[in-house]
């Protein structure tokens, strides 16, 4: 089943605030073998928040995505500043583009990650490849 064609251009509600703890930073840094003191987070850490937004997209029954058919095609981060301990972050996901190639849906997403003051911290661009049943 192809995903809902009206998805392109849709913006999902912002995720609930995520409080960045020192422990979570250290857990993430250790899982990637990086040495951090837990005050600021590794560059790819914002994916934790962006994933919450992506899951809301993927689990929306009207959208028609099956998680195990999803492969991450592309990812890019641009940062205003590193994520820091104590940040309360939200991600607001917009589907920038949707196209079909060879039975797969190519879904371009952009998650704007902002802090408790509404200031921009990071933008996470993700391209999700949703393989069709026959792909």
């Amino acid at each position, binding site marked *: 089943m192809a995903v809902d064609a009206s998805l392109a251009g849709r913006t999902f509600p912002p995720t609930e605030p995520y409080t960045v703890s020192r422990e*979570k930073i250290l*857990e*993430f840094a*250790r*899982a*990637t*073998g*990086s*040495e*951090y003191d837990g005050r*600021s987070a*590794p*560059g*790819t850490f914002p*994916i*934790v928040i962006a*994933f*919450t937004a992506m899951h809301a997209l993927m689990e929306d029954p009207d959208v028609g995505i099956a*998680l*195990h*058919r*999803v*492969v*991450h*095609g*592309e*990812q*890019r*981060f*641009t*940062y205003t500043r*590193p994520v820091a301990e104590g940040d309360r972050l939200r991600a607001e996901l917009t589907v920038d583009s949707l196209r079909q190639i060879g039975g797969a849906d190519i879904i371009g997403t952009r998650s704007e990650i902002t802090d408790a003051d509404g200031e921009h911290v990071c933008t996470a*661009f993700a*391209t999700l490849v949703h*393989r069709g049943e026959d*792909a």
Partner: protein
Amino acid sequence: MNLETGSTLPAQTYRVTRADLVRYAGASGDFNPIHWSDRVATSVGLPGVIAHGMFTMALAGRALDTWAGAPGRVRELGCKFTKPVVVPDDDEGVEVVVSGTVKNVTEDGVHIALEVTCGDQKVLGQPKAVLARG
């Protein structure tokens, strides 16, 4: 580390095992079964369990931190996930190698072209980053 235009940055080699993928799944919240179940991975046409693309990207970030000499200097980081990093169910795992070259230094920062390989294959497409100037 010398971060001038043309500088070749020392290659960083990281070993990746199934245990690393499980740990990363927990830390990142990405529990897609293609990263821990051979049954599901092969059912969608993959050769076996593959590393999270974001895990491989995090290794690129780790190399950038090493080259920058301090954390928190990455201003931009992006790549395509072109080839899967297949991680066998054994104690050896696989090796991922991250190398880089400084393309130029501008007002925006230090622009780095990365190369991320597993075996003799490039696993990330056009990986690149911008570091804040020191």
